[in-house]
């Protein structure tokens, strides 16, 4: 690791000011992606602003038709929260299957979204549910948040504070996990909400995206079989030692069908 200054502010305001003032500062949430990157010197920020002591970034709230999850809420908390189980059980199950127990006990929702790893699970849920990302400055719709490989709409000094998920009528996530890393080779989150169907795909491309052809078919008939012949073209999908773009394209249809079947079955 390269040397860095370390700050542990107690308030959001102080954290934002530290991030603004220090040009090469990075926010640290659970650190399950950032610390390995520091160790490999893939990241070498001049300062780390640890968000771990900021109380206002915690908490889960189910209020009417919206589930709000604080940015520093850990995956293990989402997986076991009663409010999440009642509001969006598919989100609890997704969280329960991120990484492994130790990672889920540290990693946070806000950290995962700000990092926007192309194979992360949470971006699929946030995009697939049409959630809103709240920051210390503004509210950003999921459709405008994920911009590219590890790239988001967040600006310098901007910190995710919470995510508001509208409650869907039904939803599910299906993931084909890389057997070694458990990251999504392809993960598909589907939801049927107030008058709209969303299908979000992670792991397959440099950034999470919506499969709009699938959404159209499902809007007419929310059943797995309508997706049988819908293929996302392999052009632009990831091709690596784990899977070719063609294989990932194939998996998207398979995972989408499984997700719809699970949503229909209420599983």
């Amino acid at each position, binding site marked *: 690791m390269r040397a860095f*200054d370390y700050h542990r502010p107690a308030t959001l305001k102080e954290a934002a000011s530290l991030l603004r003032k220090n040009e090469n500062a990075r926010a640290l949430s659970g650190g399950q992606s950032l610390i390995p990157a520091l160790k490999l010197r893939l990241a070498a920020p001049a300062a780390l602003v640890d968000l771990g002591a900021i109380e206002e970034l915690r908490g889960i709230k189910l209020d009417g038709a919206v589930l709000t999850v604080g940015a520093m809420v850990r995956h293990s908390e989402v997986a076991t929260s009663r409010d999440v189980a009642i509001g969006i059980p598919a989100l609890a199950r997704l969280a329960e299957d991120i990484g492994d127990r130790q*990672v889920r006990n540290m990693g946070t929702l806000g950290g995962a979204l700000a990092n926007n790893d192309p194979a992360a699970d949470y971006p699929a849920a946030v995009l697939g549910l049409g959630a809103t990302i709240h920051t210390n400055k503004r509210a950003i719709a999921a459709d405008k948040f994920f911009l590219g490989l590890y790239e988001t709409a967040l600006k310098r000094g901007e910190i995710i504070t919470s995510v508001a998920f509208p409650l869907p009528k039904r939803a599910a996530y299906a993931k084909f996990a890389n057997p070694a890393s458990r990251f999504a080779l392809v993960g598909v989150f589907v939801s049927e909400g107030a008058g709209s169907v969303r299908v979000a795909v992670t792991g397959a491309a440099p950034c999470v995206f919506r499969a709009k052809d699938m959404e159209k078919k499902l809007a007419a008939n929310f059943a797995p079989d309508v997706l049988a012949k819908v293929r996302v073209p392999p052009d632009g999908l990831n091709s690596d030692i784990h899977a070719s773009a063609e294989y990932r394209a194939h998996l998207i249809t398979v995972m989408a069908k499984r997700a719809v079947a699970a949503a229909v079955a209420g599983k």
Partner: protein
Amino acid sequence: MGITVSMTVNGQAVTAELDPRTLLVQFLREYRQLTGTHVGCDTGQCGACTVHLDGRAVKACNILAVQAQGAQILTIEGVAANSELHPMQAAFRDHHGLQCGFCTPGMVMNALELVRKHPDPSEETIRAGLDGNLCRCTGYHNIVKAVQAGAAAMKR
């Protein structure tokens, strides 16, 4: 730049002035001489460095010591009562849940949280629950048996 860090390790309050780069596992092993917590892969994959942070199993090679400010840390050294092995440790011995033993401290620390959440775990639950811990000797069968026996013994 030194940072003053205070935490409780195995029930004992400790304070140190640390370079912020110090990993929690480094702090435990090199500053506290608690070498039961192992460094296996040093990349957050193998789980040999698993300790409890405020009751949660975490990988100490993937956490900065400064992130544990004010936390309660439990390491494998704090698991046994006096000179008596914890039932989970005894179960690993009785069921040959280890060969070289390098992964064992991490396996035990993970198993303790697993059993707290699932007091009567099935084989499937144990295998899924130990996902974050690698063993290169045993083939896992005896580890699974040990965790099941340890869980039963902990109920007594």
